[in-house]
């Protein structure tokens, strides 16, 4: 029998606020253990939470971008369970009345624009970290660091509508681009700023009922999601093909060994005893706040990608690369000379991105060194055929180290661009006069020899002529020398 996978994802997005969800401790990665903690996030007796306004603003930004329904009143609830990285042994989260409901994330690049429906997005606090057990003789223990406890998270839950591991990977890639685009998260999966669990079930292809699902945890890279989900689909397929049943289970994906392990669960393990947190008021979002978030919503990455493709007529590949981040897209747009989107795309995708890579710079760092108008001036002169390629690349290299406009840099380095017809015409004529043989060949229709004449002219100009201009002048002069029939 052919099986079809039904997959739902639960993604956790760590918000890039300055302080934690319910206290003023810094949100920082890599600090000494248990140094970014206070009575609140340590769960000390008597401490009380208070909600971070920036976390709500970020949540609204994401909710608006995804077209969610924003609740005017949502409720923080306590999810009760014991775990050493949860200081209060309950997590403050949202349960029945969550901040955002519905919405969808469009996957523009996969299969022609499928939108993945969302169930909800809600705010919650992160847990700390407990580390793998250590051992010394008979003694075994784990270490617990609560620096991450209380960091604001958004949990985003999809409907069970994803169909393949590749689609899961595409979803996460798009979600990562979006949260970075909106500035709500750094989305670094290695640092746990974006995490993902998957619910996977199989059903006979074409069926509309849902099979028994398993929960897959620990998918902490996009590759891991793709491989983990694929492994679980394979495992369930093998079970079903052998006539066995899939048992409800929680599995861990071990990315290092590319294998799944089933977590044993005690009975009653999932009685979370949710109830509204009496320490926190109802989370209110006014009509004005909602309108403000909507008005402030930027052009979204998939919309911009489509615009680059359709209005700027960039190849799909260019459009995707240039919208990888909002900074890059914004920079790109700011350096397009009139009517030359592709020229700018070529330069940004090759020259600029090469520098970003070799110097490990962010777009912002690059833009601080070479503001977009500076690059645009250079590209405008290239577009106007005023600069030969090698000279343009040389100017680009000087941009990195030196200040000054294109003209100033050329002047400073004594580079004279022979650009004008008056300047080049004598050179062209001299080349034609000095090379009667090749000229005769070209005139006889042997176009391959034309390149030789261009080379000679370029040489005579000292490499400072713009090749296109030389070519035009040569053609015009040759035409003038063509014997009339």
């Amino acid at each position, binding site marked *: 029998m052919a099986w079809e996978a039904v997959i739902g994802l639960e993604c956790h997005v760590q918000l890039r*606020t*300055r*302080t934690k969800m*319910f*206290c*003023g*401790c*810094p949100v920082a990665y890599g600090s*000494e*253990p*248990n*140094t*970014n*903690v*206070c*009575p*609140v996030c*340590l769960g000390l007796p008597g401490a009380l939470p*208070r*909600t*971070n*306004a*920036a*976390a*709500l603003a970020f949540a609204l930004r994401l909710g608006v971008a995804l077209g969610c329904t924003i609740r005017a009143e949502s*409720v923080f609830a306590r999810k009760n369970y*014991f*775990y*050493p*990285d949860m200081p209060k042994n309950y997590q403050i989260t949202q349960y029945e009345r969550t901040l955002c409901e519905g919405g969808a994330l469009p996957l523009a690049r996969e299969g022609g624009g499928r939108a993945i429906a969302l169930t909800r997005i809600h705010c919650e606090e992160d847990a700390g970290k*407990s*580390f793998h*057990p250590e051992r010394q003789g008979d003694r*075994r*223990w*784990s*270490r*617990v*660091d*609560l620096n991450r406890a209380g960091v604001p998270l958004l949990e985003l839950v999809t409907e069970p509508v994803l169909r393949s591991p590749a689609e899961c990977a595409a979803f996460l890639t798009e979600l990562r681009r979006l949260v970075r685009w909106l500035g709500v998260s750094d989305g670094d999966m290695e640092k746990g700023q974006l995490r993902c669990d998957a619910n996977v079930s199989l059903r006979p292809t074409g069926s509309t009922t849902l099979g028994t699902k398993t929960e897959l945890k620990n998918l902490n890279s996009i590759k891991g999601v793709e491989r983990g989900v694929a492994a679980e689909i394979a495992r369930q397929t093998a079970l079903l093909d052998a006539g066995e049943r899939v048992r409800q289970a929680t599995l*861990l994906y071990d990315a290092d060994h590319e294998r799944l*392990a*089933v*977590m*044993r*669960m005690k009975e*009653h393990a999932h*009685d979370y*005893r949710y*109830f*509204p947190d*009496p320490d926190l*008021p*109802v989370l209110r979002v006014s009509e004005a706040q909602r309108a403000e978030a909507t008005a402030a919503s930027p052009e979204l990455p998939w919309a911009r990608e489509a615009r680059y493709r359709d209005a700027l007529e960039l190849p799909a590949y260019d459009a995707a690369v240039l919208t990888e981040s909002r900074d890059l897209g914004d920079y790109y747009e700011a350096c397009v000379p009139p009517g030359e989107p592709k020229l700018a795309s070529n330069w940004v995708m090759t020259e600029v991105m090469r520098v970003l890579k070799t110097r490990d710079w962010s777009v912002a760092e690059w833009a601080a060194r070479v503001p977009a108008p500076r690059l645009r001036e250079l590209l405008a002169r290239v577009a106007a055929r005023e600069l030969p390629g090698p000279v343009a690349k040389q100017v680009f290299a000087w941009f990195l180290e030196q200040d000054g406009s294109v003209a100033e840099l050329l002047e400073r380095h004594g580079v004279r661009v022979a650009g004008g017809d008056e300047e080049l015409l004598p050179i062209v004529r001299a080349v034609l006069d000095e090379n009667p043989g090749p000229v005769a060949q070209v005139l006889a229709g042997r176009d391959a020899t034309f390149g030789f004449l261009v080379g000679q002219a370029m040489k005579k100009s000292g490499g400072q002529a713009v090749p296109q201009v030389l070519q035009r002048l040569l053609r015009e002069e040759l035409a003038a020398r063509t014997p009339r029939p």
Partner: protein
Amino acid sequence: MAIDRAEAARIAELARLDLPESELDRVAAQLSQVLDFVARLDELDLEGLEPTAFAPPHAALRADLPDGRTLEPGAATASAPEAEFGYFIVPPVVENLEP
């Protein structure tokens, strides 16, 4: 509403409370007695009433700024029963795995 021994044991496990076997029956009986008393809420007319989760406050949210409460290094683990190198130490936290 009667709570039996097994139910008392289940709740105790959920609450992570060690209850000696000898106490289970007594606790079950006491809880049952309280629940019988609580059943009188059925006599109240609650038609159309919204639940009160808490007194309705209107507190503004907190600005995303440090509030001076972050503890000095070392203070967090100072009163911990067991700590080492700045970490809290607990018995091994292991996911129960089946291969």
